[in-house]
């Protein structure tokens, strides 16, 4: 008899398995029998996002607002409370991200290893944002130059930042963020 799993090698052991809620006997080869009972490919252990959130908030000493006796915070736009978020793991609207910003930072860092987006941006936001990112980079470099007492380079950078600030001012309203 051939192994019922790989159907290539001869079966050498009989294993009782629960398939679709029913007990069945399966004949397997050594190799397949060995890989049985171990983690199945594709079947990752899953914890709910709610459980993950609870563990995280505890870990960061940010106990549940309800548990600390502090009043629960609530999003003014959609009405979702932080308590509600930890139960479902789902935010309620774009404004929730502002309201729960402090807690979300830890959550995002835990999930993604980072809490900063570096990818695409909406085209409409693109122009002013590129400027902002560029300015931030220049400011960082400026701070480093001052620290290192490279004053000539620092003066150059200061001028470029001023130019960019003027350009940004001329653009009118930037994106809401």
């Amino acid at each position, binding site marked *: 008899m051939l192994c019922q799993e*790989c*159907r*290539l090698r001869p079966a050498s052991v009989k294993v009782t398995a629960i398939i679709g809620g029913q007990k069945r006997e399966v004949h397997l080869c050594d*190799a*397949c029998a*060995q*890989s049985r009972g*171990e*983690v*199945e*490919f*594709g*079947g*990752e252990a899953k914890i709910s*996002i709610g459980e993950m959130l609870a563990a995280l908030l505890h870990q960061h000493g940010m106990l549940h607002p309800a548990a600390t006796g502090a009043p629960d915070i609530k999003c003014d*736009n*959609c*009405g*979702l409370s932080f308590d509600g978020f930890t139960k*479902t*793991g*789902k*935010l*309620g*609207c*774009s*404004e929730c*991200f502002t309201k729960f910003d402090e807690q*979300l930072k830890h*959550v*995002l860092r835990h*999930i*993604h*290893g*980072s*809490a*900063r*987006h*570096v*990818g*695409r*941006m*909406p*085209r*409409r*936001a693109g122009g002013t*944002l590129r400027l*902002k990112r560029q300015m931030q980079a220049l400011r960082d470099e400026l701070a480093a130059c001052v620290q290192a007492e490279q004053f000539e380079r620092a003066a150059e950078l200061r001028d470029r930042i001023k130019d960019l600030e003027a350009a940004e001012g001329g653009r009118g309203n930037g*994106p*809401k*963020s």
Partner: protein
Amino acid sequence: MDLSRDDLFSWPISHWMEGDGPESDVVISSRVRLARNVTGIPFPHLMDDGQAERIISMVSQALAGGPADEPGPTADLHLVRLSDLGSLQRAVLVEKHLISPLHAAGARGAAVIRGDQAVSIMINEEDHLRIQVLFPALQLLEALAVCTAVDDALERHIDYAWDQRLGYLTSCPTNTGTGMRASVMLHLPGLVITNQARRLAGLINKLSCVVRGMYGEGTEAAGNVFQVSNQITMGQTEEEILSGLQSLTARLIVEERSARRSLLEEMKPQLEDRVWRAWGIMTTARVLSSREAMQLISDLKLGVALGLIDRVGASLVNSIMFMIRPAYLQILAGQELSPDERDIRRAELVRQHLSAGTA
């Protein structure tokens, strides 16, 4: 741009299911999906009917804004409301990977589907919009390019929820940032037969990717078909995330091919026997369960890839994999079928297609 039901379901098998393209001996398809939301409007799980309707009409108007018949990212896109479809029709869309099971279950959703079924937009699923592109074989970058073009076209008319620091804001924090989930559907019989699947599952998890069965979360890997996708969506650009998935896929392809080679070297007669038995059963069986059919298709697909059988082409074998699904069988039959009746129809369909495909 509204689509009649008849159009939607008389469509032939989606082009992507035929699976021609780079690395098609292992990679069945590539998918890129972008999650997008509208600023200020509650996400679908909290929205009321009026707000759900507003999102649908926003998308509808955004698409109408473009030149419908000229080539462009929004050409040939058709809107269909899920409430206009029966449960079987929705199930077919799920089987074709055009919408998710979650989406099919909700009454307030709509879907935008391109004529060739390579592009679809789920409206009011977990997020307001989920734009997805499905291509045959390994074409992740190509899929991202099309997805991005549709995204840009919509963004001209829709105020996306976006934050400079956090990126695209999504209902679930696991999608926040790029909002991008990219995945490849892989046929890995060699790795399963040689018992290496488990070792590689560990590797996949280490590389921040996730592996699942053919129909996503919680589904089993029937027919040795697996979906591998990126896990993180923040702190990396879309291109970086894709290249990570791409190199992992390349590694899996190499491992799968070498497993196939060693099987050929060590047990060619047994492998040939298995492939020809699959052919024998598929061309003669009168009753076929979905599970058995998937396993046989996997064997046949492997045989075709290794040149052990030349009675049938790779694209037909791929298409059959999607035609044997329960909802599609019932739509084809024009009526609801019991599981036993489906098994009979499935055997019939497989026999027909394989004998027609025989030269």
